[in-house]
């Protein structure tokens, strides 16, 4: 009997100790995020100025003279918006197709999801290298258009899987009752499913946008870098991640400070996107049919 009690007591202590370890690890993760944000913002806010946001680099910019990173901000916004739009135009129909016409074919659907997951896992630098191969084969130079195409391929599987997770949970009965009223599968997909899953679709689009604006490795190969504002999608364009990367590697303190400012801007954009994801996810479901 005593032995058993001992065992119980020992387990109790073990649980208590483990609980503290677990609390500590969770806390550590939260602290890390706070540290990252604090470090970036503290360094960046000081260097942030109207000039940096509103001007393109002038002569001698990379030696600490006048100018800003408007070229990179605009380039990134164009690139991410273009890529997200393109991915949406392709991604939404594919998701709907997977969830209406292919719904019965469980095996194929599983294979499709598997390949999409594998595509999500391919590093963006490999996509960049692949894009570069295609560009060499077609004899085209780095441009905003190439960047948009490659980035949209990168975010496409992310977007599809994110929408798919939500649409997949819609009860089968909704499709059956819709079809019994005489509409086609495709019409059901666009008119009923989309409305039902609007919050998830918005979330997926914002998630993809965040991914697109932060991606640097693929853009390196395909979009190039320039000090001018992009006038045309066939010209190269600067992007924020690359602007940060190039300026941080400079030995001149003024230029490095601009990298911190650029990192702050990028972080802000990501934070705003993330907050928007949370807000819209809750507020766009007024058209959904509830059980």
């Amino acid at each position: 009997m005593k032995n058993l009690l001992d065992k119980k007591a020992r387990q109790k202590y073990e649980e208590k100790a483990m609980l503290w370890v677990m609390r500590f690890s969770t806390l550590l993760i939260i602290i890390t995020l706070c540290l990252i944000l604090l470090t970036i913002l503290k360094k960046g806010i000081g260097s942030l100025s109207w000039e940096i946001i509103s001007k393109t680099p002038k002569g001698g910019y990379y030696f600490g003279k006048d100018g800003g990173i408007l070229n990179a901000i605009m380039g990134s916004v164009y690139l991410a918006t273009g890529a997200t739009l393109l991915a949406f135009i392709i991604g939404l129909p594919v998701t709907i197709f997977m969830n209406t016409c292919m719904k019965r074919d469980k095996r194929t659907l599983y294979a499709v999801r598997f390949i999409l997951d594998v595509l999500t896992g391919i590093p963006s630098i490999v996509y960049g290298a692949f894009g570069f191969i295609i560009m060499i084969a077609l004899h085209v130079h780095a441009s905003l258009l190439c960047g948009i195409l490659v980035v949209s391929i990168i975010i496409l599987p992310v977007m599809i899987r994110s929408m798919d997770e939500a649409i997949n949970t819609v009860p089968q009965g909704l499709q059956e009752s819709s079809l019994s009223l005489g509409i086609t599968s495709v019409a059901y997909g666009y008119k009923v499913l989309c409305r039902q899953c609007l919050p998830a679709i918005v979330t997926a689009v914002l998630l993809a946008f965040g991914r697109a604006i932060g991606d640097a490795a693929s853009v390196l190969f395909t979009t190039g870098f320039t000090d001018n504002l992009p006038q045309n999608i066939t010209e190269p364009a600067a992007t924020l991640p690359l602007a940060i990367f190039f300026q941080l590697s400079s030995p001149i303190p003024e230029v490095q400070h601009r990298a911190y400012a650029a990192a702050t801007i990028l972080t802000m954009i990501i934070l705003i996107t993330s907050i928007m994801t949370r807000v819209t996810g809750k507020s766009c479901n007024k058209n959904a049919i509830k059980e």
Partner: protein
Amino acid sequence: MNSSRRTKILERISTGWMKFWLVVLMLLPILIILGLIFRSMPVIHTGDATIFGLSWRPSSGEFGFAPFIVSSLYVTIIALILAAPLCISSGIFLCFYAKSSVIKIVQPVIDILAGIPSVVYGVWGVLAIVPFVQNLNNLFTGSGGTGYSIFAGGIILAVMIIPYILNILLELFMALPIQLQEAGLSLGAGKWYTIKRIILKKAMPGIISAIGLGVSRAFGETMAVMMVVGNVAKIPEGIFQPGYPLPALIANNYGEMMSIPQYDAALMMAALILLIIVLVFNMGSRILTYHYEKSIG
């Protein structure tokens, strides 16, 4: 009648569009692999590029990938050693012990951490981790060093894959049937004992696959690691030595790759090696997840 015909045409067009892109997406992995093999053929053919070769001298046509593969392995292993225990213990806490208010705080934190771009992690690494590692190095070995090292890369990678692994783990723990816990508790075992002996045992394949996915993610990370790892093409002798992972090699040299003969082929081969390693881990983990999901019904 007219309207139904229009619907039919519209339906055909949109189904065509859907099918076309679906097929393109399904073929994409194969296309990427074939493209990379095709472009790296020149160095594979002549035997100038070797996976186990130690020396990297592009100008004299020697392309040995060993330093890069070893560096990649080192940073990934360090990242895993740091991240995996944290993720597992935090995951158990959040799923089985934490109040819902705690989860409400932690979930956004995970989401934001997952969304922070690689470059921003890199800036943080240069500002915070590199000096930290430099001090640590001073403390342990007494020799200076810059702090740009394998260890710094490993720490950054750990922070980057934590939200990724934790998200998968949370999903996995949540999917476990509640009856498992109930069965343990009803037999008189404590909560911790139940978790340790029943839940973790049941979830083990899932946990392994989550970590495998973390590995595949860590292997391909480019910018952040490249900014802190030092980039010296030599097999690193210790964790405070600089290294040169595969993705950094590709990203750093894209500018010069057309100026030296065969250089571009060698870099494409680096991308190919990277892709194959990532795919092995990724697909292996996903297949494991599939069997695991089947086993818990």
